C-alpha cells in the first residue's frame, strides 16, 4: 500500500505533472533555468519537483512506521525529543589534562550535557610525549595523556558516575579505556556504573582517518576484546562508535559515508559472533557517528536511511531479536571540512544549518563546530557560541516540537529511498569482495573516497559548486579572529610529569604487568584485565602500545592518491 494515496491517483498525478512541466518548459525556453544542473553537494541530480508519484512504492507501515518501532526510519525512541533533547556533547581537548579539565568544567557550567574528549596526535597514535616521533605535537590538537595520573587530572571534579564521556581514540582505545575504568575504580566508582563511548573503530582509520598502529586483523581482534569485555563487565559503555564522520571528511559522498560505515558495522558484528558472542549480547552497545554536511535534505535522508538499513541488516542478516540490537543510535558532528578560513564568521551559519539537519534526522547527540576550528583549537568564546547554536535550535526554533517533522515530504522520502537503495548496492559490492577487511586490502574504499574528493575540489575550482567567501562573494578585507595558542613550554612540562610517575612507580611490577599484557596479546586471552592492571601500576600509554607493536607488527600507509 502506498504512502497516502490509492494507486489510481498516480496516473492522474503523472498526467498533471506532464502538463505542468510542459508549461514550465515554455517559461524556461524563454529564460533558462538558473543552473544547467541542480545537484547535491555529493553531486546527485535533483528533480524540479517531487510528488506522491515519487513515493508510490512506499508502504507506510513497512518503510516508515512509528518512532521507536521497526524499521525506525522516524527515530529510535518512541518519545524522541518530546521526551528528552539530544545530548549536547562538545568535543574538547587542548594542551594539558589540567587545561582540558578547565574547558570541561566551563562547558558543563554552560549547559552541556555530556563530555567528549579530543586527544593530541601522540596519544592518538600510541606514543608518549617524550617519543622522538612526538616532537612538536604535544597538546596541539587535543589533550596529551601519557599515564593514569593524566587521566585522573583530566576528569577531576567531574561527576563521571552521572555524566557520560565520549573518547575519540582508536588504535590505543583499549588502553585509554583501561585508564578510564582504572580512574573510576580508584575513585570508588563501580565499572558497571560508568557510561560512555570509545570510538574504537579501526576500519574507518584504514579507510579514511589514518591513525593506525597495527595491521587491520590484529586491530580488529583488539576491538573484539573490548566488545567482549564491555558486554560482560561495563554494560553501560558503547564499545564502538562506528564512524562515517571521517570517511566524509576525507571527501566521500553522502551515500559512500553511509555504505562504508554500515559495512564496517557488519564486519565488527561478524567478528564478535565469531568470538562466540550472541548478537543480542553486544549489538545493543554499538553506536554510530555521522557527519552532518552542507546539503540539508541529503543529510536528513542519510540519517533516516541509516536507521532503516541498520534495523534491516540486524534483523534480516544477523537475525537479532532484541529490538535494541536493531537501533542505530548515533552521534553527529557538523562538517569540519565545510568550514572556511575566509570570512570565518560565516562558519557559525554553516554549522547552524548542519546542526539543524542532524536534529531533523533524529540524532542522539551532537557536536557543533566552532567558527575558528578551521584555524586552530577553538577558543572558549567560539566553543560557547557553537553550544548556544544547539540550544537555540532546541529551545527557540520550535523544531523539536514534533517527531520526524520532514517525514512524508515527497522529496525527503524519495531521497531516503534512493539513499538506502544505492548504499545497499555498495554494501553488496563489498560483500562480493569478501567483506570490508578484504575491500580495504584492495584499497577499494580509499580509492573511491580519493576520487570523490578530487571530483568535488574540481567542481569548486570550476565554480560549479559555490563556497561563499572562497570562490564567490570574496572580500579583500577580513575581520580578524583571535585564535588559541598552545604554550610551547607544555611539551617539556608534560615530559617532566611523566618522568615523575616513572620514578615513583614500582618498576618491577610494571614490567611484570606488561608481560601479562604481552601474553594476552600472543594468546587468546582478553587483554582488558591485564591492561587495567598495567595502567594502575603506572605503565605509560606507549609502554603498552609498544607491546602491541611488538606482538602484532606495525601498519604503514600505502600512500595512495
Amino acid at each position, binding site marked *: 500500500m502506498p504512502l497516502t494515496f490509492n494507486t489510481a491517483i498516480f496516473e492522474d498525478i503523472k498526467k498533471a505533472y506532464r502538463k505542468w512541466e510542459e508549461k514550465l518548459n515554455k517559461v524556461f525556453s524563454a529564460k533558462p533555468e538558473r543552473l544547467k544542473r541542480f545537484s547535491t553537494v555529493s553531486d546527485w541530480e535533483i528533480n524540479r519537483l517531487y510528488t506522491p508519484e515519487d513515493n508510490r512504492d512506499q508502504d507506510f507501515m513497512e518503510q516508515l512506521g512509528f518512532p521507536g518501532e521497526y524499521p525506525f526510519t522516524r527515530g529510535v525512541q518512541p518519545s524522541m525529543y518530546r521526551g528528552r533533547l539530544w545530548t549536547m556533547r562538545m568535543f574538547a581537548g587542548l594542551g594539558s589534562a589540567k587545561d582540558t579539565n578547565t574547558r570541561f568544567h566551563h562547558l558543563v557550567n554552560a549547559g552541556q550535557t555530556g563530555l567528549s574528549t579530543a586527544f593530541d*596526535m*601522540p596519544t*592518538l*597514535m600510541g*606514543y608518549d610525549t617524550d617519543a*622522538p*616521533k*612526538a*616532537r*612538536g*605535537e604535544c597538546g*596541539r*590538537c587535543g589533550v596529551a595523556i601519557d599515564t593514569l595520573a593524566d587521566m585522573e587530572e583530566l576528569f577531576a571534579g567531574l561527576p563521571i558516575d552521572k555524566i557520560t564521556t565520549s573518547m575519540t581514540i582508536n588504535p590505543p582505545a583499549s588502553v585509554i579505556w583501561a585508564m578510564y575504568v582504572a580512574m573510576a575504580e580508584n575513585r570508588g566508582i563501580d565499572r558497571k556504573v560508568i557510561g560512555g563511548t570509545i570510538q574504537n573503530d579501526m576500519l574507518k*582509520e584504514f579507510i579514511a*582517518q*589514518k*591513525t593506525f598502529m597495527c595491521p587491520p586483523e590484529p586491530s580488529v581482534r583488539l576491538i573484539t576484546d573490548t566488545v567482549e569485555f564491555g558486554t560482560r563487565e561495563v554494560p553501560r559503555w558503547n564499545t564502538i562508535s562506528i564512524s562515517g564522520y571521517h570517511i566524509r*571528511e*576525507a*571527501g566521500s559522498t553522502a551515500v559512500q559515508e553511509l555504505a562504508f560505515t554500515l559495512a564496517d558495522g557488519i564486519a565488527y558484528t561478524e567478528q564478535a559472533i565469531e568470538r562466540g558472542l550472541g548478537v543480542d549480547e553486544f549489538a545493543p552497545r554499538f553506536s554510530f557517528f555521522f557527519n552532518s554536511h552542507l546539503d540539508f535534505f541529503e543529510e536528513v535522508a542519510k540519517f533516516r536511511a541509516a536507521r532503516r538499513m541498520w534495523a534491516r541488516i540486524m534483523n534480516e542478516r544477523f537475525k537479532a531479536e532484541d529490538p535494541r540490537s536493531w537501533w542505530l543510535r548515533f552521534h553527529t558532528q557538523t562538517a569540519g*571540512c565545510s568550514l*572556511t*578560513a*575566509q570570512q570565518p564568521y560565516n562558519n557559525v551559519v554553516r554549522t547552524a544549518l548542519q546542526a539543524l539537519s542532524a536534529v531533523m534526522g533524529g540524532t542522539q547527540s551532537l557536536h557543533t563546530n566552532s567558527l575558528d576550528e*578551521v*584555524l*586552530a*583549537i577553538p577558543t572558549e568564546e567560539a566553543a560557547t557560541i557553537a553550544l548556544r547554536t544547539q540550544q537555540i535550535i532546541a529551545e527557540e526554533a520550535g523544531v523539536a516540537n514534533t517527531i520526524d517533522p520532514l517525514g512524508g515530504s515527497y522529496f525527503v522520502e524519495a531521497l531516503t529511498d534512493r539513499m538506502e537503495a544505492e548504499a545497499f548496492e555498495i554494501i553488496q559490492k563489498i560483500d562480493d569482495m569478501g567483506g570490508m577487511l578484504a575491500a580495504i586490502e584492495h584499497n577499494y574504499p580509499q580509492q573511491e573516497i*580519493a576520487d570523490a*574528493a*578530487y571530483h568535488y*575540489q*574540481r567542481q*569548486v*575550482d570550476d565554480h560549479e559548486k559555490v*563556497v561563499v567567501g*572562497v*570562490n564567490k562573494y570574496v572580500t579583500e578585507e577580513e575581520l*580578524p579572529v583571535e*585564535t588559541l595558542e*598552545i604554550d610551547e613550554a607544555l611539551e617539556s612540562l608534560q615530559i617532566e610529569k611523566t618522568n615523575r610517575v616513572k620514578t615513583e612507580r614500582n618498576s618491577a611490577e610494571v614490567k611484570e604487568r606488561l608481560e601479562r599484557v604481552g601474553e594476552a596479546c600472543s594468546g587468546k586471552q582478553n587483554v582488558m584485565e591485564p591492561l587495567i592492571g598495567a595502567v594502575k601500576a603506572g605503565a605509560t600509554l606507549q609502554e603498552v602500545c609498544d607491546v602491541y607493536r611488538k606482538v602484532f607488527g606495525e601498519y*604503514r*600507509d*600505502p*600512500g*595512495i*592518491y
Partner: protein
Amino acid sequence: MEHKRRVRVMVAKPGLDGHDRGARIIARAYRDAGFEVVYTGLHQTPEEIVEAAIQEDVDMIGLSSLAGAHKYLFPAVVNLLRERGADDIVVCGGGIIPDEDLEKLKQAGIKQIFTPGTPLEEIVSWVKQNVSPR
C-alpha cells in the same frame, strides 16, 4: 633539440597527523599538471622526508600539516636539507596554518604557504613559476 626534464615534486606528510585529503588532492593536481609526483604517505619524520627527497632527486617538497605541529616540523625539514647540502630543493607548505605563523615559517626558509581555500590552479602555477628542474 634538448629535452628538458619534467619537474619532480614530492608531496610529504610530516608528523603524526593523518589528514591526507589535501595532500592527496594536491598530488593528483600536480600529476594532472604534468609534474612527476612522489607521495610519501603518512607519518613521516623530517629525516625520512629529506632522505627520500634526496634519493628521489626531487626539485620541490610540498609539506602538508593540519594538526598544529608545523612550527616544529616545517623548519626541521629545511634545516636538514641545509645540513645535507640539498637546500636548492624548494620547500613549500600548506594546511591549517594560522596567519601569525606565516611570517615565521617564511623566515625559516619555507618559500610559500598555501592556506585553505587556495585554488589548485593557483598552486600549480606557483610551482611552474618558482620551481625548475635542478
